[in-house]
């Protein structure tokens, strides 16, 4: 399955209407701004483009994905948010950010009237995870911050691990 999402012509921020993709991980609904998602693929359809990456320091990233000449790091959303183990079936490939998100399923796309700031009382990692909260159909849904999936240090670490994996792979190819 492939769903291509066109970027919004005018990215909106704050308490303005915006279109989001609602997705589910371990029975918990999240939202992500539609204009930050490049495409949505099933895990089956990208199996050939995915490679394992060995990085014990970041267990939430176990695969890379090569798309259009770029390497994306695939973040398991359940592990990222500390949720129970689930069966992810879709990958949200993000735009302008070398990360993809493994999720269980897409609920739908929706227009939200705005994003409420996360109350100041929340002081943990969720301040990095979320842009804020959306109120839709009598439910409060966290709106994820794509940049919060991986820190610059995480990227450095993953880039090192990825280069190392590539080096090992080419050595093995030469020996073969």
């Amino acid at each position, binding site marked *: 399955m492939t769903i291509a999402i066109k970027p919004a012509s005018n990215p909106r921020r704050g308490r303005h209407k915006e279109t989001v993709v609602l997705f589910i991980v371990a029975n918990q609904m999240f939202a992500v701004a539609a204009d930050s998602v490049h495409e949505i693929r099933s895990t089956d359809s990208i199996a050939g483009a995915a490679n394992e990456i060995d990085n014990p320091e970041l267990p939430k990233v176990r695969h890379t994905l090569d798309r259009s000449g770029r390497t994306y790091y695939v973040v398991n959303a359940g592990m990222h948010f500390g949720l129970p183990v689930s069966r992810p079936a879709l990958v949200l490939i993000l735009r302008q950010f070398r990360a993809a998100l493994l999720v269980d399923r897409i609920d739908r796309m929706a227009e939200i009237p705005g994003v409420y700031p996360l*109350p*100041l009382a929340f*002081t*943990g990692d*969720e301040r990095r995870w979320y842009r804020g909260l959306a109120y839709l159909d*009598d439910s*409060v849904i966290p709106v994820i911050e794509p940049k919060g999936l991986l820190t610059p240090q995480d990227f450095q670490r993953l880039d090192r691990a990825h280069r190392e994996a590539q080096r090992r792979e080419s050595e093995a190819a030469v020996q073969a």
Partner: protein
Amino acid sequence: MSSIDAAIANAKENSFVLLQIGHRRVALPAAQVVELAPPVRLHTFPHATSLLAGVIVRRGRVVPVVDTEPVLGGKSPLSHRFYLIANRRVGNESELGAIPVNGECELASGEMQPPGMDRPAYVAGTISVGDDSIDVLNLDVFSTANSAAANEMHKAEARQ
């Protein structure tokens, strides 16, 4: 406006709202209390902050709900689902916070005495109501509490 809300609106200095949380009867300065909200839906989502149960939406605002159970003990007050909404200080700013209560609140007057040296951080002081000495909660501590602080509060509670 409920009678307790009307009382809160007319509250003066040295007025306190007495509430039942779990098995504990505690007090909050009435000036801090905004309203007693009906049992609206508690929304939960993954987060890493101790002592927060989730949020409620009240009058178009998202209000974080303090989970007092780990600190104050007793049967989960979340089952009661009335919410006392009060102002709390978070760092240098102020925002609303909600505490699950069983809905039984009353107004009392008295002069708050400083807490004893052995009292946990969430006790701002005590007031005398009849023969009882009732702890006045310091909600700000709940807003800044991390796991370590929560554990400290547990231990302090266990020592009593």
